[in-house]
């Protein structure tokens, strides 16, 4: 298992190197070059020359790349042209919010999606099954930001059950040692802060979790139906395995393999969806930060974000492969 993890981590290096080359060339391919991107269209030639000298854009391209990579390795993603704060600092301050949101969204998706898909498969062809199929179809076709709108309008504006924006009530005085607001409240015993942060999480997390939920329910349903009809299940039943034990040990265990892969694939969707959901709910994570960076054409942030997300994405996929080994003994042997 340790070897698998190490090998996969090693494979990450060429991917990131390749990506960094693309990103490096990308900024240099900008119309007017990076200096114009930094200064805007109406920059004077003197200012452009000064920036080129300051950032080393006048040096040989290979030298520039090596310098840039050296900085990246040390965690220096450059400075946001919009806020003047190092990009990495901005990310680290906002990342807990996005992690909190995506983790809760994923938990909702798994917690509802798997049972739903399983129950649908057990009642194949009946109303409940048809309902699940329709629901999972709607889940993938309703844009996540539109669903966020609907939830916000219904449950925040109309019914007033949940707050409509932000991570925590602005009047709430709370300390944040970790940046995960729900966790912070529990750690510092500020229960009301924790509860308030949780209430703020519900609507964005449900909106964000809708697509993965639909996909997970659908894959679970298909997988359970396939395993139910497999020869080895019939054999196990013929050998006298009691149905509850059969379902637990044979059907669910085998049916979960494709589901585990699917869950891993959702990480990319969740990160993309977070950009949209955070925007709708003014949830101050890296997603809404990226949306603001787009408006301001803040290339340092965009560039850093892509690399950052690629690393997170790759690590998430690695985690899925590891969990695969835990579910399937055959994978462990390799």
């Amino acid at each position, binding site marked *: 298992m340790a070897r698998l993890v190490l090998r996969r981590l090693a494979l990450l290096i060429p991917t990131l190197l390749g990506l960094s080359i693309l990103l490096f060339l990308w900024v240099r391919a900008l119309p007017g070059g990076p200096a114009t991107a930094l200064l805007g269209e109406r920059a004077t030639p003197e200012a452009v020359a000064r920036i080129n000298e300051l950032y080393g854009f006048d040096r040989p391209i290979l030298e520039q790349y090596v310098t840039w990579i050296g900085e990246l390795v040390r965690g220096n993603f450059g400075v946001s042209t919009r806020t003047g704060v190092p990009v990495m600092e901005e990310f680290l301050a906002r990342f807990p919010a996005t992690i909190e949101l995506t983790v809760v969204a994923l938990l909702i998706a798994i917690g509802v999606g798997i049972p739903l898909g399983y129950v649908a498969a057990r009642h194949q062809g009946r109303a409940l099954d048809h309902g699940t199929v329709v629901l999972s*179809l709607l889940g993938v*076709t309703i*844009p996540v930001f*539109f669903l966020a709108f609907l939830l916000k*309008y219904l449950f925040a504006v109309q019914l007033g059950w949940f707050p409509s924006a932000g991570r925590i009530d602005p009047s709430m005085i709370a300390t944040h040692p970790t940046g995960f607001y729900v966790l912070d409240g529990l750690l510092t015993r500020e229960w009301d802060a924790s509860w308030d942060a949780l209430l703020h999480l519900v609507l964005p997390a449900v909106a964000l979790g809708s697509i993965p939920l639909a996909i997970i329910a659908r894959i679970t349903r298909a997988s359970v139906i396939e395993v139910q009809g497999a020869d080895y299940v019939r054999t196990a039943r013929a050998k006298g395995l009691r149905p509850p034990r059969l379902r637990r040990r044979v059907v669910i265990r085998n049916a979960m393999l494709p589901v585990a892969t699917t869950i891993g694939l959702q990480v990319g969707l969740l990160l993309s969806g977070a950009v*949209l959901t955070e925007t709708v709910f003014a949830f101050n994570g890296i997603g809404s930060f*990226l949306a603001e960076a*787009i408006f301001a054409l803040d290339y340092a942030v965009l560039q850093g974000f892509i690399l950052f997300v690629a690393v997170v*994405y790759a690590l998430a996929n690695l985690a899925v492969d590891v969990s695969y080994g835990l579910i399937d003994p055959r994978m462990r042997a390799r």
Partner: protein
Amino acid sequence: MTTEPAAQDVVRQTVPRGPRTPREPDDAGASLWRVAARRLRRNPGAIVGAVIVLLFVLVALLAPVLAPYGAGALPGRAEIRPTVIPGPSDAFPLGLDRYGADLLSQLIWGARASLLIGILSTVLGLLGGALLGLLAGAFGGWVDTVTMRLVDLMLSVPSLLLAVSVAAVIGQTPSAIIIAIGVVQVPIFARLLRGSMLAQRDQDYVLAASSLGLGRRTVVMSHILPNSLSPVIVQATLMLATAVIEAAALSFLGLGGGSPTSAEWGRMLTAAQNELEVAPRLAMWPGVCIAVTALGFTLFGEALREALDPKTRKR
């Protein structure tokens, strides 16, 4: 090769055939696409999907005839007050938006913009991806390695985020969204076509074609490629749904230029964001349009996949 008819005869004689319903025509001998068309016609999902898609395409094509007002026209500007956005009336069937544009007209012109972006970007992604996939699948060797590494690289970033950064670089023009969404589809199509071609390469008919002395180009272009296309076509249909949603997402995020009054579903949702408490219908209609269009493409794509899948055939 000469043993093949004989083998088929044996199968025919020994395998008992189940009773056939009279409505079920024999699939044997019919072409792949003819069988698929027949199966599509019998699938209610396919029909619903096709009707939705056709409806929206018609609306988009006939926008100048159907829309009561021109794109971007503000016929009701005089009726807008800071706290009042008039709802449905005789003159404006779905009401006005914040700027005084007729919502129904905006939706109809929006169908044109959204479908055009969705279709053009998918065509772009399909062509680019098919070209890369064809290169990799036909040549193999280092061409394959380089192409597939590039594909892996592009797939190492979630597609919407890649599209966001591509569109941001191109600048604030509507074509930025088309190009961005097309670009992120390229690796998906490339990988799919290559995989599909590799699966065909070892088939007997390819061996037969080569042994007849056909050149490699002929074998690839007229034998392997046509037989590898069906998963690509299915994917393209499903991708249209994704493209429409992602296009809306990009313009919702403020990419692709255009003013707040431009008739484009995603942009309409952005504008509606501030009016959620005053006029929720402004968000409702464009959202429903996006979802229903995506639903149409998805239903049809799924049905097409089922119809072309040999595993679910003859059911």
